[in-house]
């Protein structure tokens, strides 16, 4: 009976047997890399939007406070995306004929909402609340990254659970004074650890066991 496989397949089979461990590691590493890649995490990927809204221009150059548009960030779980009217409060006066802003004017004319693409998304089983993070000294840029430098908004962090837990385990490394929450240019001071430990006490931030309790975020 003729051989089914060519002699060279022996080499292949030996390779795969002796190299099994490497193959498994490589496969695992590959999956890990894909999971961490911007394709999956969308980190640093600018999302196309109906209007190329620039946080860099509005926040850093014009100095508009975050809460002018994101009105419910201190009151509610959801920070709020501004209604068309908020955009038009300025843009009925300036850049009134800019073609870039046509979708905004069209929205007002037709009474149809602008459909923005969500940049910072969490899975449905995560119940994140903006208001309590603001209250406890977590600044906007801690999660949203250098928003004042983004001409078009991108996700700055993976928002994976282990990333959240980084702060929920050691909030002292990240919290800042309440006065600096909405400062997009804030840089942590050199004595962050000492300041953070002080703030954790003053702001009555809960201990690690409570912050990492499952129902803090899931229910």
């Amino acid at each position, binding site marked *: 009976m003729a051989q089914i496989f060519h002699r060279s397949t022996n080499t292949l089979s030996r390779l795969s047997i002796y190299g099994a461990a490497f193959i498994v590691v490589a496969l695992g590493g590959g999956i890990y890399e894909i999971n961490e890649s911007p394709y999956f995490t969308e980190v640093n990927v600018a999302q196309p939007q109906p209007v190329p809204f620039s946080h860099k221009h509005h926040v850093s150059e014009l100095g508009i406070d975050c809460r002018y548009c994101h009105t*419910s960030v201190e009151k509610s779980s*959801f920070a709020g995306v501004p*209604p068309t009217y908020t955009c038009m409060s300025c843009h009925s006066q300036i850049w009134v004929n800019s073609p870039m802003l046509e979708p905004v004017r069209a929205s*007002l004319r037709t009474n149809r*909402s602008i459909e923005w693409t969500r940049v910072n998304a969490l899975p449905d089983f995560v119940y994140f609340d903006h208001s309590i993070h603001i209250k406890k000294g977590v600044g906007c840029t801690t999660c949203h990254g250098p928003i004042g430098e983004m001409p078009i908004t991108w996700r700055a962090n993976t928002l994976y659970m282990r990333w959240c837990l980084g702060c929920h385990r050691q909030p002292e490394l990240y919290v800042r004074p309440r006065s600096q929450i909405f400062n997009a240019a804030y840089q942590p001071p050199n004595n962050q650890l000492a300041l953070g430990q002080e703030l954790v006490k003053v702001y009555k931030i809960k201990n690690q066991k*409570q912050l990492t309790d499952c129902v803090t975020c899931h*229910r």
Partner: protein
Amino acid sequence: MIFGKTLKLMAGKDNPQERLDLVTIRARLEEASGRRTWQSLDELAETQEFKNFLHHEFPHVPEKSSGQVSRRDALKFMAASAAFAGLTACTKLPTEKIVPYVIAPEEIVPGKPLFYATAMPFAGIATGLLVESHMGRPTKIEGNPLHPASLGAADAFAQASILTLYDPDRPQVVTRQGRISTWSAFLDAINELRADQLVKKGEGLRILTETVTSPSLADQIQNFLKQFPQAKWHQYEPAGRDTVREGSRVAFGEYVNTYYRFDRADVILALDSDFLCYGPGALRYARDFADKRRIVDNKSTMNRLYVVESTPSNTGSMADHRWALGPREIEGFARTLAQQLGANSGGVSITAPAGIPTDAIPTIVRDLQNHKGTSIVLAGDQQSPAVHALAHTINHALGNNGKTVIYTDPIEANPADQTQSLGELAADIRVGGVETLIIIGGNPLYNAPANYELRSLFFPLPTTPGGARPASKVKLKIHLSLYNNETSELCDWHIPQAHYLESWGDARAYDGTVSIIQPLIAPLYDGKSAHELFAALSGEPGRTAHNIVHDYWKNQKSIKDYEIFWETSLHDGVMAGTAFAPKSVPPAANYNVAGGDSSTGSGGIAIIFRPDPTVWDGAFSNNGWLQELPKPITKLTWDNVAMLSPGTAQRLGVTKGEVVELRLAGRALRAPVWVAPGHADETITVHLGYGRTRAGRLGTGIGFNAYALRTSDRPWSASGVDIIKTGERYPLAYTQYQHMISQDQKEVEEESVAAFNRQLVRVATIEEFRKDPDFARDSEENTRADDSLYPPYKYDGYAWGMAVDTNSCIGCNACVVACQSENNIPVVGKEQVSVGRAMHWIRIDTYFRGGLDDPETYYEPVLCMHCENAPCEGVCPVGATVHSPEGLNEMVYNRCVGTRYCSNNCPYKVRRFNFELYSDWTTPSLVPLRNPNVTVRSRGVMEKCTYCVQRINAAKIKSELEDRDVRDGDIQTACQQSCPTQALVFGNINDPNSRVSKLKAQSRNYSLVAELNTRPRTTYLARLRNPNPEIKG
């Protein structure tokens, strides 16, 4: 949710050898000398089915096929499962859109719910509600604390009505002769009709409504009748209060409305009245009643409740003395009582009922006479006018009128004998006097008395066999209703009705208080309200329901700042100053009723008709929450039954599930039998509301239609029913012996029942309690905290816990629906219920104590105990159920892989597993119903009560934003909030001043199965009874 899924019934599941042997059961109970508590007849008979449910967590999981899968294959499957399980973690999130408003409404903060006051008209009468709305979509119904008929509680019907709003089976278009049409086409038809009828002055024009208490709608109808003076307005409510009204007319010569002040009553006698759970004012009555028997310490006092009734009811189970009497005997009892109290007994020869001990009646009489002005005698809505009239005169003789029994003007806009009113309409149709019939709501072709033969008037039978059907005598039939039902099918026009959460309106509560019905959402399917229909009929088709209601009250209340008054009324949910003033009515000098419909019968077995405890008169047939809600006491779901006493069942030789034919006056009906401990002998109870043929996907074709036997002269009870055995059996799905906690510790040698009974229910009389306040306390050895391998955990900060006062629980099911609505709990269907897979997170365990014929009944709501030493946590291989620093036993759906070890290890059997994809993920109209703060579970995960952790988190966040601690009362779990008697109290047990701590500090506090040292956070307070020491036995 199982919309669109067919229910396959398990035929032949019942094993004939397992049929209950009532003789043996009686013997066993005798042996236990009345001290044993039991939950069902199956338990007493120790049937195999019962044992399966007791000892196996999931008795109906098919046996695993052993020997067919090789070891290799098993390993392959394991490897593949592990690989796939790992891969699911790598899902890329789908891209989402954010769609902000163009102009943001002023009040809405995205992510925060808003609450609006409104009212639900139930049988025409309002209950005040507060409805939670998320971004414009109503999600949860709660009671309105400012409304006198609610005080913050809501019953099962009101809470489940939100599911009806989103029901995908609601009609979505106007139809004409069954074909799609439009509202404007209908308006054209109305214009033609008006032109024609204005000439005839409305001759041949008839309106049929349900009970109307709405002042603005009544005003519209009156205006309409002015335009068409020859037209007539009929009303019909199948489970209406005709006999109540007639009873007041007999006693006082005019229609009056009666309501009761249970907060002033120390002795109550209920004549077959389920006043705690059903009827207008029930929520308020339950609260006042429970407040009068709330125990704080051993000096507390309790009111006393005597009940005589035919069918076991929630009120009967709260009674200190209860006697099961047939309908005839109840009237006799009332007459005897009236005579002995010196009241007008109606001048009829009196027969003292046999079912009640001879010494009892004089004792009751003495007790009532000792409480003149602080007692209440009340008759049930289904009692004959004679019994009602007797109750009125007894109250008069006792000086209760104006004190505990309040009379006012009728709350109905047009009080009438509705059964007679419908009869007149039927007679007019028969003689061809009705040309146009406009039916507003209701379903008369399904629920009218059988002797009116309304269906054949709408859809006449051929005059010769096989011949053509003649045309209906009514030329034009118009039906406005929520569902396209049995009546709509035979009407020319069907207009979809707007749900009460979609339309403006108003209605009166039990004491006359007006509430504005405020819509929460624009009509989903372009439904129209009765107001809009009458506006069109009166020639003002453009007028909105809002304007009609608003302007009506503007004309009534000629006050300066009307808009402020209107806004305040909307905000509060009650219109100030609209409750009727109490009125003093002298009883008619000498009335004489020859007895009600019940005493005219010739003997034999009596049949009793009752509205169903969960689907009422059939109006809620297509509501999955209510269909699956275990009915009080029987715990039956998805069906109705013919209830018999054990004695009568024994005599007739019938058992549970056996189909019998009921014959009454030439009409017949087939129904499955249910043996109900505590039912009156020689009496059979059937519930209305089932056997629908056109209810929707859920409600069609289940149960039997008891209306088929019901006639206009005997609407609630009739004598001389024949019961014929058919030999067939019918599978019933009930939860009575599912999720049972074993009462006996098996290890201990069996000596006597009481010696090692776990005492899941602890009961004493108030006398016994005063002598021994610690009777219910767990023994020392059962409460040692250090009996654990794990180091004790110190709960500083909040420690959540709950106390359940079984002394207040009336078993009304409000908490079960509240939980279902709050926590997105799915409906599983009859087949799944019967194999023990109902998903409710809270169940009302019902226990009986004593003999079969008249047992005492006890309720015990069981939810997750949140044990400090939780047996479920240790056995979870993936850490999906863990403990929080505040003492919550948490369930993490995303970690759960469905081993079900936790459920297997839970001594309280409170964990529920998603064997299938029970939650409806596809029906678009059900998406907005869900609570956005609770995960909608998928197939293969375990779930259970979370103590409404979403509410705890919301309150904690709110308190921290306001720089304070959570205050007692900030967090109410859904079950607690809906409870009419405040039997459930939740709070922080680390705070000694919280309500829950104070309750747990009472000597009545005990834990379930404490000897397992689970240290449950949910504890129970023992039930007390206040029997009259002069009545023995």
